């Protein structure tokens, strides 16, 4: 089997209506190279748990175009939301194809121009898409050399490429540009045979730090987000919302709203909306509607709040599934000198991207055009097609810049709302959620519980490990420590909860599952190290045989200047390890705890990562810094307050996210591992943040925190318990 034909079978070929001719028709002349992501195994494991297309593409899901103007474009369904692939993917393409990076265009997230893609999540763009992109670019280069050989009458073996041109090595004046080769041509190639890509030693653009290519547009206000799309005749819609999840509309008196000049009130079943050419006027007209909502019928969920949620979840948990095991737990327990049992909790957390969910939909006859802030434009296309009753091919989704996603924009209810209102009103409609709506309709990181029972022998070795995770998801649960007897059980193994589990929607949140799992695992490892009276770095090293993990930990300890001591040492230093999206992380943090108030101040965070080949070291470092900073939030403050379906935190006044004064000194180090395939960069360094701070707090004051976020009251309470 050819490795690029992973999906190929007749049924899928027939079911997937990918129309190559359509792309070629709209894309003008040039040299086209079609390719697809090689390895789907990542995608099935780490998707957001929704937005599955009817079928997977079997032929290609990205292509390159070398135009007769000499510009090179990559067409991909991936989107740019700040993670920086607009730069790193272009680097790969430019390097393999030997063109200047300024001549590379990334055409992203447009469902008419770009082939199908499942979405941008799971730190997959570089590790899954990147290798395919590089291979395609290398193949395109080979095609160009063949064409040049014919034109220049020079054997291909004597030709080389540089700066968008092919030249004769023996006579460098004999040359032709890619533009000249592409001129007037319509050449279509498919990547089928394995192609040799450049070795790291040959890189000219890859693995070199490069600043963001979209920065200029972003610092001048030119960069367009979905809310910046303004169309002739477009109306802004504001939608009547229930006071609580589950509350049903009984009646709505819209008379006063209808009196507002230029306002249109739309009613369709439970949907009540005001449309106006100005969003603020639509909003004030909406506030004039007198609406009555019924109290939702009592269910076990309607009484639940942010304190009682964990008991509820444990009761609501479905049967467990053993995801990994080895040895014999009973035998392990017999070998134990002490048995340690703890339960860890973490609250619901919001994605809270600075750009709320926004969409514009324009319907013309039997065709709809959509501009959406989404991480999954093709998923959005299917939802809009379904809402409007259109074939998917008659819906085009365009993804402008996305103002942060973090997993939250794999769900896009706003797109469907805009489509529905565009259909009902006959006008182009923009739906831009307010911050309040964003905090109400987010697909939150689920509240989760982890129970760990473990033992250590008299000599300080971990004898057994019995790990149960409820509602976080399995990602990050597998054990990388060497423990002879172990079992990992997942109860509700997805971050999307079973029916009746959560009072509102939950979903994938940056490194889904792994934040909860790493907080529990790394806290518990620390508890055992303290019990054994062994330095927490040393204790971890003793239980690791994975060379990669040992290397990141040893490097972190060395760079930090770690001096062995058993915890609590009073220094306020903590360590935590994690693996996410194929990347290994070791984080060490130093904190100060105010013993009077319980306030925790993180002073220094150092993270070391082994992520294989690094395409843009500057971009990778920024992602690590972003992970560390965002991680401070869920570790120290972020936790949703609610009662039943009623949400208490509806803006940043009560839901606190990290701000300038919280920032520690951040140091990031990426290990040189250029001969290994690239791994994820957007998520790994966030997973250790809960435990590294919890462990540092313990080291500072001897108080152990079992619940996230570690707000001052909890820290004080833990100090009183001692």
């Amino acid at each position: 089997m050819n490795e690029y034909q992973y999906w190929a079978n007749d049924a899928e070929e027939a079911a997937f209506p990918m129309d190559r001719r359509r792309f070629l028709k709209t894309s003008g002349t040039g040299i086209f190279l079609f390719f697809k992501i090689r390895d789907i195994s990542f995608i099935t494991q780490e998707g957001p748990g929704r937005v599955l297309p009817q079928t997977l593409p079997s032929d290609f899901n990205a292509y390159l175009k070398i135009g007769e103007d000499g510009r090179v474009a990559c067409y991909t369904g991936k989107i740019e939301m700040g993670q920086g692939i607009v730069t790193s993917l272009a680097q790969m393409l430019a390097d393999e194809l030997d063109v200047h990076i300024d001549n590379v265009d990334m055409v992203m997230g447009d469902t008419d121009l770009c082939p199908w893609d499942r979405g941008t999540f799971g730190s997959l763009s570089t590790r899954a898409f990147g290798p395919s992109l590089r291979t395609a670019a290398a193949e395109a280069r080979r095609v160009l050399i063949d064409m040049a050989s014919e034109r220049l009458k020079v054997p291909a073996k004597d030709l080389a490429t540089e700066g968008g041109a092919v030249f004769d090595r023996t006579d460098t004046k004999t040359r032709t540009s890619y533009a000249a080769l592409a001129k007037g041509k319509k050449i279509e190639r498919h990547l089928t045979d394995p192609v040799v890509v450049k070795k790291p030693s040959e890189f000219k653009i890859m693995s070199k730090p490069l600043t963001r290519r979209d920065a200029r547009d972003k610092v001048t206000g030119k960069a367009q987000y979905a809310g910046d799309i303004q169309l002739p005749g477009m109306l802004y819609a504001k939608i009547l919302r229930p006071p609580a999840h589950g509350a049903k509309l009984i009646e709505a008196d819209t008379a006063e709203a209808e009196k507002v000049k230029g306002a249109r009130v739309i009613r369709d079943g439970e949907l009540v909306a005001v449309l106006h050419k100005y969003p603020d006027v639509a909003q004030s007209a909406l506030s004039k509607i007198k609406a009555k909502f019924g109290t939702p019928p009592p269910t076990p969920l309607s009484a639940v709040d942010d304190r009682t949620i964990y008991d509820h979840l444990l009761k609501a948990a479905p049967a467990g599934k053993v995801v990994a095991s080895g040895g014999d737990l009973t035998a392990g327990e017999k070998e134990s000198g002490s048995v340690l049992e703890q339960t860890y909790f973490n609250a619901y957390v919001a994605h809270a991207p600075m750009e709320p969910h926004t969409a514009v939909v324009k319907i013309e006859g039997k065709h709809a055009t959509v501009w959406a802030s989404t991480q999954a434009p093709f998923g959005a296309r299917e939802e809009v097609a379904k809402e409007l009753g259109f074939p998917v091919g008659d819906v085009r989704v365009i993804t402008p810049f996305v103002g942060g996603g973090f997993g939250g924009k794999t769900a896009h209810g706003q797109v469907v709302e805009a489509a529905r209102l565009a259909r009902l009103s006959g006008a182009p409609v923009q739906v831009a959620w307010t911050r309040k709506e964003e905090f109400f309709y987010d697909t939150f990181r689920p509240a989760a519980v982890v129970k760990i029972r473990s033992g250590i022998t008299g000599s300080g070795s971990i004898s057994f490990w019995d790990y149960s995770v409820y509602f976080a998801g399995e990602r990050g649960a597998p054990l990388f420590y060497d423990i002879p007897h172990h079992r990992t059980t997942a109860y509700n193994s997805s971050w999307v909860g079973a029916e009746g589990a959560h009072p509102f929607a939950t979903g994938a949140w940056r490194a889904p599952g792994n934040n909860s799992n790493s907080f529990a695992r790394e806290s518990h490892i620390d508890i055992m190290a303290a019990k054994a009276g062994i330095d927490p770095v040393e204790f971890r090293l003793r239980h690791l045989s994975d060379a990669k993990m040992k290397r990141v930990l040893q490097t972190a300890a060395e760079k930090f200047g770690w001096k062995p001591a058993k915890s609590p040492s009073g220094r306020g230093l903590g360590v935590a390890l994690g693996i996410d999206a194929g990347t290994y992380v070791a984080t060490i943090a130093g904190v100060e705890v105010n013993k009077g108030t319980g306030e925790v101040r993180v002073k220094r965070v150092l993270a070391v990562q082994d992520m294989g080949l690094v395409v843009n070291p500057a971009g990778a470092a920024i992602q690590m810094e972003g992970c560390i900073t965002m991680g401070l939030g869920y570790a120290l403050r972020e936790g949703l307050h609610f009662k039943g379906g009623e949400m208490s935190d509806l803006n940043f006044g009560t839901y606190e996210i990290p701000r300038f004064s919280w920032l520690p000194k951040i140091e990031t180090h990426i290990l040189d591992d250029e001969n290994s395939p690239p791994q994820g960069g957007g998520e790994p360094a966030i997973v250790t943040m809960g435990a590294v701070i919890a462990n540092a707090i313990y080291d500072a004051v001897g108080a152990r925190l079992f619940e996230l976020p570690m707000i001052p009251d909890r820290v004080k309470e833990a100090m009183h318990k001692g």
Partner: protein
Amino acid sequence: MEETLRFKLNGKPTTVTVDSDRLLLWVLRTDLGLTGTKYGCGESFCGACTVIVDGEAVRSCQTPVKEVRDKEVVTIEGLAGESALHPVQKAFMEHDALQCGYCTPGMIMNAYSFLRKHPKPSVAEIVEGMEDDLCRCGAHNRIIRAIQAAATEMHGGH
């Protein structure tokens, strides 16, 4: 109340006839088509909507448009004036002080106003001056470095 307001916008005399209680953010974005100024929270918590009115950073999501009558408003689109980029914009680019870019216009406008008052700021002063501007991507430390760099450049040459 609908009335005609005159003010200077990015250096140009501007007239709008609007309900003068409407908020500056929406008049800028919709009536005047300047979409660089962003909505982030609508309640003055995040700073994405920051613009400069008579030299002061204000949250346009909480500012009725009538308050800028006869005043001078500068938005991200007008910050550089005749030059290609203002030193603050340039410093944000050079320090990769942004990711998704959505908070960036507000950050830059607030930093600009801050630097007018603190030409040689300490890190602590920058933190205090930027504290109420929120960024979810975590570009904070780079933003601080960008503001320091911009201060140096502005002090040297502007």
